[in-house]
């Protein structure tokens, strides 16, 4: 079983499932080269109509013979999974669909406490798929209400303050990057696109394999040369072969000081005991991250 938590939503998948698509508000998984599950979500204001969404799905997928179904028409394991979700405050309405080549089962989910609305569907190729679908549905979690929000992806996990919003991310062989953004005016968080205006970037990175990357140079030299948001020369890096950190002002001038546009930077980079990787957490922007919050974030960033 592998746990995936992404942008406030979590799912634990059976062994062998792999993410085939990762979006800001969506995940898709495949198993043995076939699609296994798709999940999309959004936060909606006000009331949520299941019937309206099922009707919209039916209209948009006329070739798939999609129908909303009651709990008495779904497999027993699926019904039990929905009951588990109901206990955690998530309401649901199921649907089934069938095409010439495959069939599927899914549900529209809504958490009235947070406004999270999600659409999840599973592709059913055999009986095991049906059992996996129910087991996976039962693990659906809404983490968006907490003061801190976790994320877990590709064997890494961390926990961040809820004011940070997911900005950009990439998972390339050898280099993973996940960037978050916290606007200076937290109240305007919903109005501005992530990364725009004054605020603070929070960047998680993972480089591997460390044994190859650090073969010819110490960690501090490597960090200065290769980290995407390495500190400028004016900021001193303190560290040794296993960990390094810095904290200082990256850009300042009289004009920047008057306009309150001084850029602060803070970062930690370290090699892991297991996993042969280099992890780094960097914040930079107009607001310096409080030391304790930054330390908590760094300590939460680790291998699952």
């Amino acid at each position, binding site marked *: 079983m592998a746990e995936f938590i992404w942008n406030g939503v979590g799912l634990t998948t059976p062994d062998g499932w*792999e993410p085939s698509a990762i979006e800001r508000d969506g995940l898709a998984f495949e198993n*043995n*080269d076939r699609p296994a599950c798709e999940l999309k979500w959004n936060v909606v204001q006000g009331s949520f109509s299941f019937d309206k969404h099922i009707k919209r799905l039916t209209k948009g997928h006329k070739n798939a013979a999609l129908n909303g179904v009651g709990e008495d028409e779904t497999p027993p394991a699926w019904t039990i999974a929905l009951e588990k979700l109901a206990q955690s405050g998530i309401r649901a309405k199921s649907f089934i669909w069938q095409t010439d080549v495959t069939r599927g089962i899914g549900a529209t989910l809504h958490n009235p406490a947070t406004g999270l609305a999600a659409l999840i569907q599973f592709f059913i190729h055999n009986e095991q798929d049906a059992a996996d679908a129910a087991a996976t549905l039962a693990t659906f979690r809404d983490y968006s209400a907490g003061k801190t929000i976790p994320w877990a992806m*590709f*064997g890494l996990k961390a926990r961040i303050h809820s004011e940070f919003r997911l900005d950009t991310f990439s998972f390339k*062989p*050898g280099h993973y990057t996940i960037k978050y953004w916290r606007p200076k005016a937290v109240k305007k968080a919903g109005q501005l696109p992530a990364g725009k205006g004054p605020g603070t970037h929070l960047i998680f990175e993972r480089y*591997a*394999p460390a*044994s*190859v990357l650090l*073969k010819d140079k110490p960690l501090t030299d490597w960090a200065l040369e290769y980290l995407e948001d390495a500190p400028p020369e004016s900021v001193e890096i303190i560290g040794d072969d296993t960990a390094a950190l810095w904290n200082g002002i990256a850009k300042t001038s009289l004009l920047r000081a008057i306009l309150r546009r001084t850029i602060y930077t803070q970062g930690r980079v370290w090699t892991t005991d*297991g*996993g*042969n*990787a280099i992890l780094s957490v960097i914040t930079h922007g107009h607001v310096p991250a409080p030391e304790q919050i930054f330390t908590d974030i760094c300590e939460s960033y680790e291998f699952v």
Partner: protein
Amino acid sequence: MFKKKAPLPTIPRSEALNMVPVRNLEVHEHPIDGGLIQLSYPLAVKPWFGVLAEKVGMWDKRPMIKTLELDEMGTFTWGLINGERSVRQIADEFAKFYEVQPREAELSVTAFIKTIGQRGILGLK
């Protein structure tokens, strides 16, 4: 001239991973500093280029030899190519040795095999 090119045949991922890379017998490896290796391989000359190069006296029909230096991970992967291990087995060994994610190893190994395969250094069976 403007005829649409036929799309290249594609095979499913699992089938591609089960293929076995085989070294070109014409390729020679030479150890270099740091435990790395350098490959020398005959350059596949396109027929039209060969005719042209011969006519202008640039080529005497002897095979042109090119060299390619592999980095540490390339050397490790090259060492695993023995005509018996499949791409999947090589990726598994790579993931185990470098402690990276299986999918990450798969992408790295397939990219390496594709790159050196395009140079005619190996084939797939």
